[in-house]
């Protein structure tokens, strides 16, 4: 009987699950190849960066094919992971982003030859972790995914080994991260214990049972524990999302880490965490008994979103280091994106959820669209920072004075990214923000606090204008000091930033690209709510 069990497991894995796991497997294979090649000194023949880039591109292509073939949702690996458009969207998103980041590191040359296999192994490993976060269907996978994404990130932040700032940043990150992981794990243990299962697709059902088919209220100690556990899990995710008040690691880690790593963490780990947060909350939603509780969480997230974006935007004002400023900017943007999740929760757990399929989809679609645009605009900004650092050895905003005269392509890209980050048309950031604000506005029909959230979001957009424009003003209006180091980029680097800038622009004003992405994001968002076909 036991051998039969093993046989079934092997069959299931080989014939079925591994196919869904193809993109991740390619990345794993690349990691193995990276490490092996150094062992047998092949890395002197093939640059490891090229190998890593190839692996990332293959994963992108595989994910692209999955996007066209995936229909409905299925669990695999005995129900630990789930495969649907939503997973595939994140797979595609993350592997594309990985490829772009590797391309950036090739251009800037940040990991030296000696360390590059380690660095790329960490990078790829973290990406796999983030993919698992987005595909998790079990509380254990939730934890494993977060840890797999976090642990390599700690190492990457500290990768500039000889730099005091880097080691300090890594230490802060690892301690903070480990603490948050501990909190989250405690939450997981409470949920799993109280509801008696780790399978996320069963959580809503179990909650109803715990609440004795009534409305889940905090008066019931079991429900209270579940609520506590849910909150603790969300604290762990809030750490990954750098939501206030769990954002403290973020400015310090970003300032200490190299800009390439900063760019990677700001986009990729946030994307994975949002995927996970959405999955986790959706798992609890959709059942009348938990509706009131989840609406409360939704409003709570709305409050957190308000505080986060206000804090991020205000704190970015006085910064002189551009990486630190961008770190606060990512905090603020996490707040914007959290608005969509909040609106989604409020709508999904309202009395009319059945009629609101379209609107709920639009919330998630807006979030996914925002993430895609955010990929290009934030990576663009960090890429500019990294490229300039290679010439001026400085990351102070003041050292950017008058760069337009020396490197116009770089500055134009920066203008595109910054203006898109503010959310001014015709750039992609505007439409992404518009979609999210629109969803929040609709959610206002179900709870008044959403209007407050919307108002705060709009005010924050205005506030954010100033610190972004300060950078642009420095770059464009001021004169370049005579003693400043010259920044003259080779063509390839201009092409790279030009490409990112072009995408930021195109996502805003090229209807077919924007529409295409919108459709994909919409489908991916829709898939998460569709019925799950359990493992065969």
């Amino acid at each position: 009987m036991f051998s039969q069990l093993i046989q079934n497991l092997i069959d299931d894995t080989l014939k079925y699950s591994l196919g869904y796991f193809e993109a991740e497997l390619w990345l794993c294979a690349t990691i193995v190849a990276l490490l092996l090649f150094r062992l047998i000194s092949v890395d002197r023949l093939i640059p490891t960066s090229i190998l890593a880039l190839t692996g990332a591109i293959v994963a992108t292509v595989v994910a692209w094919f999955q996007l066209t073939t995936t229909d409905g949702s299925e669990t695999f690996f005995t129900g630990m992971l789930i495969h649907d458009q939503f997973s595939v969207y994140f797979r595609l998103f993350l592997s594309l982003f990985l490829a772009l980041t590797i391309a950036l590191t090739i251009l800037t040359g940040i990991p030296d030859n000696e360390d590059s296999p380690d660095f790329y192994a960490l990078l790829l490993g973290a990406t796999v972790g983030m993919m698992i976060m987005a595909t998790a269907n079990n509380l254990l996978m939730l934890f494993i995914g977060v840890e797999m994404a976090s642990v390599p990130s700690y190492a990457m932040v500290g990768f500039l080994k000889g730099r005091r700032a880097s080691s300090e940043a890594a230490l802060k990150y690892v301690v903070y991260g480990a603490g948050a992981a501990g909190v989250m794990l405690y939450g997981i243990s409470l949920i799993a214990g109280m509801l008696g299962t780790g399978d996320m697709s069963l959580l809503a059902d179990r909650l109803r049972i715990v609440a004795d088919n009534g409305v889940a209220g905090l008066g019931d100690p079991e429900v209270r524990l579940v609520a506590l556990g849910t909150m603790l899990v969300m604290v762990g995710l809030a750490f990954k999302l750098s939501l206030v008040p769990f954002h403290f690691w973020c400015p310090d880690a970003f300032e200490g880490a190299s800009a390439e790593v900063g760019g990677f963490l700001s986009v990729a780990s946030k994307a994975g965490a949002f995927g996970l947060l959405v999955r986790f909350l959706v798992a609890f939603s959709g059942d009348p008994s938990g509706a009131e509780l989840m609406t409360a969480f939704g409003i709570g997230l709305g409050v957190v979103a308000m505080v986060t974006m206000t804090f991020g935007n205000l704190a970015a004002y006085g910064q002189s280091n551009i990486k630190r400023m961008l770190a606060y900017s990512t905090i603020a943007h996490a707040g914007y994106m959290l608005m969509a999740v909040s609106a989604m929760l409020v709508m999904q757990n309202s009395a009319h959820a059945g009629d609101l399929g379209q609107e709920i989809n639009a919330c998630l679609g807006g979030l996914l669209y925002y993430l895609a645009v955010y990929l290009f605009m934030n990576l663009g900004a960090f890429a500019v920072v990294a490229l300039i650092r290679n010439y001026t050895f400085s990351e102070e905003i003041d050292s950017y004075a008058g760069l337009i005269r020396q490197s116009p392509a770089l500055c134009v890209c920066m203008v595109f990214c910054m203006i898109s980050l503010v959310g001014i048309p015709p750039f992609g950031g505007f439409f992404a923000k518009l979609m999210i604000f629109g969803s929040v506005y609709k959610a206002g029909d179900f709870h008044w606090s959403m209007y407050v959230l919307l108002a705060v979001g709009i005010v924050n957009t205005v506030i954010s204008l100033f610190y972004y424009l300060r950078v642009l003003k420095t770059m464009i209006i001021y004169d370049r000091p005579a003693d400043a180091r010259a920044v003259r980029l080779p063509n390839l680097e201009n092409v790279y930033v030009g490409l990112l800038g072009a995408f930021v622009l195109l996502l805003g004003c090229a209807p077919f690209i924007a529409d295409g992405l919108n459709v994909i994001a919409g489908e991916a968002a829709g898939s998460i709510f569709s019925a799950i076909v359990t493992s065969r």
Partner: protein
Amino acid sequence: MVGETLIPTLLTIAWLLPLLGFAVEMLYGRKGERTTTKWPAWCAVACIGTGFLCSLIALLTWGQATGWAVLESHDLHGPDQHHSEDDPHHHGDSPKHQASTNESGWQMTALTATENSDDAEHVPFPSVYSGTLYTLGVFGSLVVSIDYYIDSLTLVMFTMVTLIATCIHLFAMGYMSDELTNEYVDHFAHTSDGKHVHRPGRFYRFFAYMSLFCFSMLGLVLAGNIFQVFVFWELVGICSYLLIGFYTERKSAGDAANKAFIMNRIGDFGFLIGLMVVWTWFGTFQFSELFDSLPRDATGHIVTNDLGEVAVSTHSGESRSIPYSLLVVAGLGVFAGCIGKSAQFPLQTWLPDAMEGPTPVSALVHSATMVAAGVYLVGRFYPMFVPEVLLTIAYIGAITLFLAATIAVVATDIKRVLAYSTISQLGYMMLGLGVFGWAAGLFHLITHAFFKSLMFLCSGSVIHGCHHEQEMPKMGGLMRKMPITAGTMLIGVIAISGLAVPGLIAFSGYHSKDAIVATALAFIQANPAHFLLFLLPLLTAGITAFYMFRLWFYTFFGEPRDQHIYDHAHESPWIMTAPLLVLAVFAAGCAIGGEKGMLYMMLLGSEPVHVANGVPAATVGELVLPGHSAIHDVHAKAGMWALLAAISGTLLAYVLYGTKTVNLSDMKRQLAGIHQFLSEKWYFDELYHALFMKPVHQVAALFAWIDRTMIDRVVHASAGLMVKISKWDRFFDETFVDGLVNLIARATFSSGILLKAVQTGRLRQYVMFIVVGVVALFAVLFTTFPN
């Protein structure tokens, strides 16, 4: 039929080629060796020359297609049969049959025109090709399109314009050659410090403008609707403006260009009114549709009902009544445009000033083609003119021809003499058209184009040879220095004067002027009240001969008056004399055969159908419009009178300027009053100045005064008030609004700084915040969420 597609295609090519030339010359004329290359000229010549070939082939194709029927029919019968004026049945017969029954040739040509659709079915060839090249837009019932309307008149005009333009382009290549430099010194223009203007040569630009002009002119001739005519009408106006002002540095040139442009605008205003009437009441601009829609009875009268309205069937099939007066307005409006363009009284003053342009321009634009466009349009629009309008046209023409001729007698600038002569001759054409001599007027248009462009080119050759001296009193005896120019000029002079040995040899001008004078005579015989319409042209025939021979004698005959100029004079190079010879041949021979000749017969082929028989008076006192037969009756008599006048004018000129029997300065002193009056051009400029300019200036001064004293005061007062208000506003802004804004900004910024302080950088504190955060959130959750 071959012609149906071939002819329009050929003419379209001939029309568009100069536009291509213009584009090429304008875009690339500057490149390379900049202004010292001749290829733009060759490019222009190639374009217009090809255009000429196309036109010629089209003309021949047309003749072939029609079997030269117009020409044959004439040769077969005597000129004095005219008994079938009111016999419409014969209209349906074929030309051969007509000829065999010894029918009148005029009849035959009349029916070839297809304005009368009834006859068109029986006509063996279409005398009109019309169609649409491109539809620009449809606005309700109004279709704005580029059409073509090709009859024999179009073909003749095309051939004439392209031929003359080719000759003039060639001539200009020699004439303008001093522009072939990067450092052209304009001796007639001065900078503010009194030096001559130095500028790069504008050789390419000259030819680009010329090409543009050719395009516009050909488009005007080809146009198939009156609106298209208007568009190209304005285009030739622009070209004229550009070419008159070619030497922009000279103030006189700029003024002349402005004058020409503004004078033309006055006429065009009338043209626009005419267009509006036509569109509102006929609903179409198409010539063919317009001509069909106006009903005429068998005698050629426009049919009116009891209310004096004309029942018109529009092209869309509906019929409506048009007040007769509106037809007058439409006709007078369109004619107003023609007055401006053809420099007729009272808008004639711009043309002499237009001689500021280079001489080839004067030859092409301001004598042969553009100014004749007014006459052409009158001819083209002829079926729409009612007798009242025709009478106006006749009188305007008569006044103009006399007026201009008298001024020409005393003018001393060689080009101005020719300019006044042009005005006068255009007056002849208008008169001819006005007294119902449709073919006669257009006949004169063609012949005049040849001999006048010839004479202008000759004058250009003289000016070129004498180093830009234009005053005739400084010339004299140039025949010895420039024999070709003198000879060809003489041919032109004889042609315009109408000298001939009847029955033996006669140049073109004799025939065409005869035709006009004969029509005028027939007209006044039928309408004795309008005797001036014959007397003035007859008298002017003498004056014309006088001033033209005066010009020739002054310039080429006798002893040199200015030895310096004479010594440096030289015959022009072949590229300038060859066009002279070609044009001289045409000036002498284009009208061979007179009214039995090919040219006249070709034109007759397009004559509106009601012209041939004349229009008898319907009521007592109304105008009688003479038919061909009536004209033919008096032709010999009129020709004799005209010849007599011309010969006496010539003799007088010879006595005064050819021999030295009369002291000219004495005569001038004795006739000082008249001389002064004439040389001041009848004080027209002064009159206009007093009538229009001064009142406008005075009114403007009045308004300026009102502005300054009243309006300005109000404005200043309100401005002062605004300043006070805005001072308060500023105070408010700066203290309250700005203060608020700054306060908010400072608050945000300082809160940002404050928030920075939260980020202490202490790890232990961070970790503590996790704990505190979790506990705080939990507390919030439990306090806010109901059980």
